């Protein structure tokens, strides 16, 4: 039971980050390879505020998320106005720089040997509620004017501008939302693991998240969530295959790219309306079968 709870808690924490990546990559068509670095900043900042600053948990988390979002603004400012390739290149560089910084500031962060002694405060319930809340917020975001503008500029920036969309600003909004979600996930992570070290936040982790979004369906929040659930639970279950994990992932994704580029679910979303429609068509299928009996 403890094992299941442990796995689920980690899956829910990952889910929050992946939902953030969905906003950035799925909705807006931007890629961040420094996303994990924002998680690191969230982890370290909230951990430090509580352990060394003596703050209570909730305000520490709020402050940490705000700080990370501010850093996101500084990183995003020069790049959101440029071609979208820049954001992935620059965030990759940013990730490396943050890793170097965390390794270097030994007195504050414990350097490469990690930052220990963070109280264990994240429960399964907190992680689950947070993940569900994150998914709901992002679902609302997707159907809002922001979500529409994100999807519009994802396909055609020039036409989006011609419709009066402030592309730079919408991109920045999406980027900051994803940074904030990731930072929050980092806070939960720190207070669950009670220990963080810089090596866990490299570009591989960011790439992992993109792959999860893509696996389930890059245009579907439901698909991304499902992808995150499957792919982040899998390695926890198959612990013995740790080394093969990335290879298996990669092969799976290459198959999807080549043969089903829209991912597992394509654009399908879990909404009451779609559910009813699917149920109806299934009903028709089985209904006719019963009649012939």
């Amino acid at each position, binding site marked *: 039971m403890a094992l299941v709870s442990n796995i689920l808690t980690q899956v829910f924490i990952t889910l929050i980050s992946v939902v953030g990546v969905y906003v950035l*990559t799925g909705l807006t*068509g931007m*890629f961040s*390879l420094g996303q994990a670095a924002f998680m690191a900043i969230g982890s370290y900042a909230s951990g430090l505020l509580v352990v060394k600053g003596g703050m209570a948990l909730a305000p520490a988390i709020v402050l940490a998320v705000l700080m990370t979002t501010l850093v996101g603004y*500084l*990183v995003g*400012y*020069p*790049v959101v*106005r*440029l*071609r*979208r*390739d*820049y954001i*992935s*290149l*620059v965030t*990759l*560089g*940013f990730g*490396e*720089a943050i890793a*170097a*910084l965390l*390794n*270097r500031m030994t007195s504050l962060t414990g350097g490469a040997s990690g930052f220990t002694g963070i109280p264990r405060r994240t429960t399964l319930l907190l992680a689950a509620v947070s993940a569900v809340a994150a998914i709901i917020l992002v679902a609302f975001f997707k159907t809002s004017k922001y979500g529409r503008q994100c999807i519009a500029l994802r*396909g055609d*920036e*020039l036409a989006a501008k011609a419709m009066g969309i402030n592309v730079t600003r919408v991109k920045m909004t999406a980027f900051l939302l994803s940074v904030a979600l990731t930072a929050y996930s980092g806070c939960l992570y720190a207070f669950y693991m009670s220990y963080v070290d810089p090596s866990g936040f*490299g*570009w*591989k982790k960011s*790439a*992992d998240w*993109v*792959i999860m979004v*893509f696996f389930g369906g*890059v245009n579907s929040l439901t698909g991304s969530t499902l992808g995150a659930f499957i792919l982040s639970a899998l390695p926890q279950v198959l612990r013995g295959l740790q*080394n*093969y*994990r*990335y*290879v298996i*992932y*990669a*092969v799976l*994704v*290459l198959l999807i*790219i*080549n043969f089903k*580029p829209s991912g597992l679910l394509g654009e399908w979303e879990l909404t009451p309306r779609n559910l009813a429609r699917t149920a109806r068509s299934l009903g028709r299928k089985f209904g006719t079968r019963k009649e012939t009996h």
Partner: protein
Amino acid sequence: MFLGEATKQMSLQIVINGLATGSVYALIATGFALIFNILKFSNFSHGATMTAAAFTAYFLVAAKGGGLAATLLAAALAGALIALFGEFFGFRRITLKHSSPTYFFVSSITLGTLYEGLVTIRVGSNFYNFPSFFKNPTIRISGLVISTGDAMMCIISLVALILLAYVIQKTRLGRALRAVSFDRDTAQLMGINSTRIIQLTFVISGLLAGAAGTFLGIKYTLYPTLGSLVVKGFIASVIGGLGSLVGAVIGAVLLGLIETLLLSLLGSGYSTIATFGIMLVFLLVRPQGIAGSNIQEKA
């Protein structure tokens, strides 16, 4: 102003080390820029290609007593083969379908993950050292100490870049490559087999990646995440101007010099951060990069 003899020596030393570092960054950046140029996406598998190629050369040649030339050749060939594999399994179908850049991005990081994963399975997280290829590890010229490895790196990179420039500017392949990178569909209509040209571009990029990986392995050590040094090539490309080969070389040399200078002033951790800061400022001031080739979406 009077520069003391010692200071002069030191700054000269920094310039030389910077050029050496810059030359290997230039190999990375041009390999990356070639693919960017032709398919208009950032190839994030480039780093892992470097690692995988360098390791292949290590196990097949260097560990069995092969010399520098044989090792480099093996690495370059391995790089080319890996790049061809990637082109076929990662990019061929989405290129033909004119898929959105999203797919290229995901494909490239997936390939990167795959290569790095395979290397990790073979070597664990151990560090490997290339055997010392040179009798004298350093050369001394009037008080300056130059590592023989660095000197070879500079020379070989320079030769490789000159060859590359020749191929692109003077040969039929180069002309076709420029045509395809300008407009793939029109080039195809003009009778250029653009799939073949893309393949060849990947081969060239892979050759460069193999060489760069080996040099990095010699300069530092060989380890599975060595490829993350590719970020230096990316930064160089951004500074130089995305997609411009000349820009990539200039950016790389500049980055090498700046980094070596910062390294001597700030130490290793902070120099990475300072380099990143410089890139951000650079993007604010001159987003089109040094070469100023601005890739615009078609109206």
